[in-house]
């Protein structure tokens, strides 16, 4: 492991690790997403056939994972802005991380049914 990749292992380090990991995941999805959207220039059928993949249960679950990654990256990113630009930011970074995790948890619970309803309905056969 390259030098300097572990730093004390507290909230500050792990939120930094999670920010990197979610950022890379989102960036790779972005490539795929621009490519699949570009299929609207091929034909409506090609696009609809490809979007059908997004409606399968496994990929639908991955969309929930994508939303989890985006929400963490967004909320923790706002925390980073506060740490950098708010004079008391560094002092409250730990409390802000737990606030981020709290909001993230509430939003993930709220998003569970709306995002996965397609799969839940198809699995229950209605």
């Amino acid at each position: 492991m390259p030098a300097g990749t572990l730093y004390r292992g507290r909230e500050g380090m792990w939120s930094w690790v999670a920010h990197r990991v979610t950022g890379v995941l989102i960036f790779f999805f972005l490539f795929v997403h621009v490519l699949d959207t570009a299929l609207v220039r091929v034909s409506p059928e090609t696009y609809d056939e490809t979007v059908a993949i997004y409606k399968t249960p496994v990929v639908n679950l991955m969309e929930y994972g994508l939303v989890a990654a985006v929400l963490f990256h967004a909320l923790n990113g706002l925390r980073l802005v506060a740490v950098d630009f708010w004079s008391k930011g560094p002092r409250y970074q730990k409390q802000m991380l737990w606030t981020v995790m709290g909001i993230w948890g509430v939003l993930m619970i709220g998003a569970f049914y709306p995002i996965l309803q397609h799969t839940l309905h198809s699995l229950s056969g209605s």
Partner: protein
Amino acid sequence: MSTETANAPSEGGGSTGTTRYSVDNPAPLMTPPRARTARTPKSTRTNFELYGWLFMRLSGIVLVVLVIGHLLIQLVLDGGVSKISFAFVAGRWASPFWQIWDLMMLWLAMLHGMNGMRTIINDYAERDGTRMWLKMLLYTATAFTVLLGTLVIFTFDPNIR
């Protein structure tokens, strides 16, 4: 200090109490840790990294609104992913508002992601050659994706068939 070498007598001096360094016996010269040398790249003399740091924060704030709005419309509201189809895309891109929304999201997200990946490559790829090739690949893939996406938004034709 007991790390004496032939050229560097200890600063403690001899038993006489006076320093042993003199014009004929100068103290060893040490390079300060961040001194600029002939090998320091010229490019580090700009504020590029400062602007990169600022861009990440400003684009990040805008992207929070753009991306969460996008996810809300595409994945949460109105049946989730079920409703997405060519017709749905055509309906949204009929409005210049959503075209500009998507265009801004594309450019900001790709540049934000590219700069993040650049930082990660600089952190973990230790060999000069590896770093250069990974960044070339990153910049090529980013330019291709941004241009393709922009072209798709501007040339979209709802009556393609």
